């Protein structure tokens, strides 16, 4: 009977008490804090870090349950197991929350400046960052809390700076003009991730481009093109047709005139043009459309940017300068109609990329950004995947992964966000130039002192 007395706790099963008891015991005993010096085949899982200011959803619970089964099983197999937890700084989410807070105080982030903004961000992290961690603990996660990491930890920042410097020295990082998803509302470049495709009931406007003779006279012949964004015609630098399209073969090399700006642009042949879509002729705006950007690269076309960063048109838009993009659209349609060039307005359901941050349609915009060259890097992974590194479970994802690596574009790594890692580059300003311009020289280094030393060397060489 003595045992029975010991087992009184067994009378009723209370998950709440049992779970709390063992979660506390495991943590206080550091049961899951392994020593790298200990024997046992190493086994390690680093958890996908949840957003530091988030709260637990069912997806986290599922991911956690799966990982914990795997690592607990490995531990029972006698391996030396590390399961390392951490949280992500959630750059966009936190930035958005803070900007909302500021707005309610009638301020903007620019008003308070970077330092004050970051102070607020860290405060916010301290206040709300514990929630997700304590929720993960309630699942019974057998991770090593003594090794908990945060993506903005100083150590991790050092890793980022080192990584950036290595890539830069390998000439894999460059600054370039590139189309980025620009959000006119939040005035920042947004990643593809932050772009949400939404179906809208829009229009397809059909209009005519007049052909011109070799001597520059306007002919009574036209090519018809169609667009959902008529304002971009101001930046057109070509009209493209398919080389196999018999209807237009004779026009290849001939020029047409862009109305309003009186620019003469060539008719070019590009096999990416779909003969069967619309009239088979497409206007090419390399500075405002990713597909056209690619055509422009292939044919060495000029990139003419017609828009300011706030979504109003710039000096290249001629008489439409300073109009908002949507006001300009209306006006251009009206003017095209007046000129007798508008041929058809079609109702058209299509998807438009919206910015997650600003909740407005994004504009593909040419701007100077930092890029990571991906060809060599992705090729390295393609070589490895042939020997099943890594091995995907289920295996069908291997193909998806491979396809993606094969069709990869250079990665735009710069972001106009304060809450996050900064690019370790320092602009070199001198007496002749005291503001940062597109062509301001810069130095990539590990820290400011190194940058200064490097800058002095470089300038010495220059002069």
């Amino acid at each position, binding site marked *: 009977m003595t045992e029975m007395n010991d087992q009184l706790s067994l009378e009723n099963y209370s998950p709440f008490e049992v779970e709390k008891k063992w979660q506390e015991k495991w943590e206080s005993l550091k*049961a899951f804090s392994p020593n790298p010096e200990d024997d046992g085949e190493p*086994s390690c899982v680093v958890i996908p870090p949840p957003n530091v200011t988030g709260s637990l*959803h069912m997806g986290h619970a*599922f991911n956690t349950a799966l990982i914990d089964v795997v690592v607990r099983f490995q531990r029972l197999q006698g391996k030396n197991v590390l399961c390392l937890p951490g949280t*992500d700084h959630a750059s966009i989410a936190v930035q958005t929350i803070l900007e909302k807070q500021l707005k309610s105080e009638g301020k903007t982030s620019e008003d308070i400046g970077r330092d004050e903004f970051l102070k607020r961000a860290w405060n916010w992290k301290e206040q709300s960052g514990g929630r997700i961690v304590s929720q993960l603990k309630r*699942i*019974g996660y057998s991770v090593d809390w003594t090794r908990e990491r945060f993506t903005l930890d100083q150590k991790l920042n*050092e890793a980022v700076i080192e990584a950036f410097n290595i890539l830069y020295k390998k000439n894999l990082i460059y600054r370039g003009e590139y189309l980025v998803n620009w959000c006119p509302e939040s005035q920042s470049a947004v990643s593809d991730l932050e772009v949400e495709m939404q179906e809208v009931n829009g229009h397809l406007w059909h209009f005519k481009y007049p052909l011109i003779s070799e001597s520059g006279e306007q002919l009574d012949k036209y090519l018809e093109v169609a667009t959902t964004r008529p304002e971009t015609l101001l930046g057109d630098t070509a009209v493209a047709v398919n080389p196999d399209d018999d209807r237009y073969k004779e026009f290849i090399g001939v020029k047409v005139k862009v109305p309003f700006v009186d620019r003469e642009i060539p008719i070019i042949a590009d096999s990416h043009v779909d003969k069967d879509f619309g009239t088979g002729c497409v206007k090419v705006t390399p500075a405002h459309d990713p597909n056209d950007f690619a055509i422009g690269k292939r044919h060495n076309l000029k990139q003419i940017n017609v828009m300011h960063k706030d979504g109003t048109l710039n000096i290249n838009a001629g008489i439409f300068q300073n109009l908002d993009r949507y006001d300009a659209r209306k006006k251009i349609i009206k003017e095209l109609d007046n000129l007798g060039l508008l041929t058809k307005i079609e109702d058209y359901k299509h998807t438009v990329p919206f910015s997650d941050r600003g909740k407005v349609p994004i504009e593909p915009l040419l701007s100077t950004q930092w890029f990571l060259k991906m060809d060599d890097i992705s090729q*390295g992974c393609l070589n490895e995947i042939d020997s099943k590194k890594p091995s995907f479970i289920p295996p069908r994802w291997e193909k998806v992964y491979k396809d993606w690596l094969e069709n990869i574009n250079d990665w735009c790594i710069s972001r106009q966000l304060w809450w996050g*890692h900064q690019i370790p580059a320092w602009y070199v300003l001198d007496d002749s130039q005291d503001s940062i311009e597109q062509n301001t020289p810069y130095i990539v280094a590990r820290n400011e002192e190194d940058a200064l030393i490097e800058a002095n060397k470089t300038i010495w060489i220059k002069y």
Partner: protein
Amino acid sequence: LDTWFSSGLWPFSTLGWPNTNDPDFKKWYPNSVLVTGFDIIFFWVARMTMMGNTFTNNIPFKDVYIHGLVRDENNKKMSKSSGNGIDPILLIDKYGSDALRFALIREVAGAGQDIRLDFDRKKDTSSTVEASRNFANKLWNATKFVLINKTSNNNYSLNESDETSLELCDKWILSKLNQVNIKVATLLKEYKLGESAKLLYEFTWNDFCDWYVEFAKQRFNNKETNNRKISEKVLIKVLNDILVMIHPFMPHITEELWHVLKLKPDKELLSLQKWPTQENKFVDNKLDNSFQQLFEIIRLIRNLRAELGLKPAQKVPVYLISDNDELIDFLKILVDDIQTLTKSSQVFIFKPNAVDKKEFAKSFSGIISDLEVYLPFQDFVNIDVLKERLTKDLTKVTIELENLNKRLSNKNFVDKAPKDIVDECRFKLNEGLVQKERITKKLELLN
């Protein structure tokens, strides 16, 4: 910088990189496995492999396990905008984290598939999580049974001499246990988590709790100490192994129960024990099949008793007749168990030539492969009461059949109702017809 730039370094920046001499980095890099959802293969997984390969000359993890989404009770994707998320903390508060974990993993059928989580939004309840909570209860009660019945705190490990005194049911549960152990370990190494959870559930609930514990109960009533001792040892061995194997899925309750069993000093943790040894010598497929047959026989007898309307206290004799010598020998060894488990007054086992079947003219009977089962009712039940009950059942079935026939002969219903509803009607019709025939035969028998 793009957030994915730092996330791409995550598998090694967390282990001390760029200091490649950091003991953590040296020991644990590359990682063993990355477990993540398919939606971030490009954004995250590929960025990590590219960064890892560039900076460390190593793909940062050996395996990548890609899992699906948790869908809601209507099989819809959960999202903030549709507000159909199910709060895991709410379910943990209600059923416990062990139950939620087990419920989620048990739903996984093949890696990478989405799973569905049952949820009643009016009551904030989930029947699947509740089922897992019931499973936890089952484990709790099984452990309680073992504790109440164990006699001393002495050595519980099965030694060589014990092995020679094992009874058939001990050998059977040890055979099952080792098969499950081998299968589960193999499945888990292949990341077949859902499959292993299901296997452990079935073994624990059906084989261990429903059968072996029942066998053990009888032996605890037995005066013979050795018999009792062996049973105790086997019970504890199997329960211990179950707790270890279920631990990755339900870590808290297993840790608690394992400590209560006190097989090791209290300061040790189940979390840090070794996976139970796999003992191939116990695996005996022939024995498994024999026990499978035994369970079918017992179920049949129980059904026949139910059809006769017998109360548990009413003990009647059972006759088992078969030509199969091997089966007869096997059943003879277990005759006492059959008697207790079916609440029979006596169990007779005959070869067909040793008995005149006419004696069983007034019996309810059934057949399981080459074995016939007879329950003579003449002296044990009130025929009139039984007749009345069967007649009532017959009327009920007949009405039900009429209704089903009416529905199915309605062209409008057959053409327009959802297919699964029509199929269900057809299925019920067939079942009803079988039942009607059975009752009719029995009534004939009674007349």
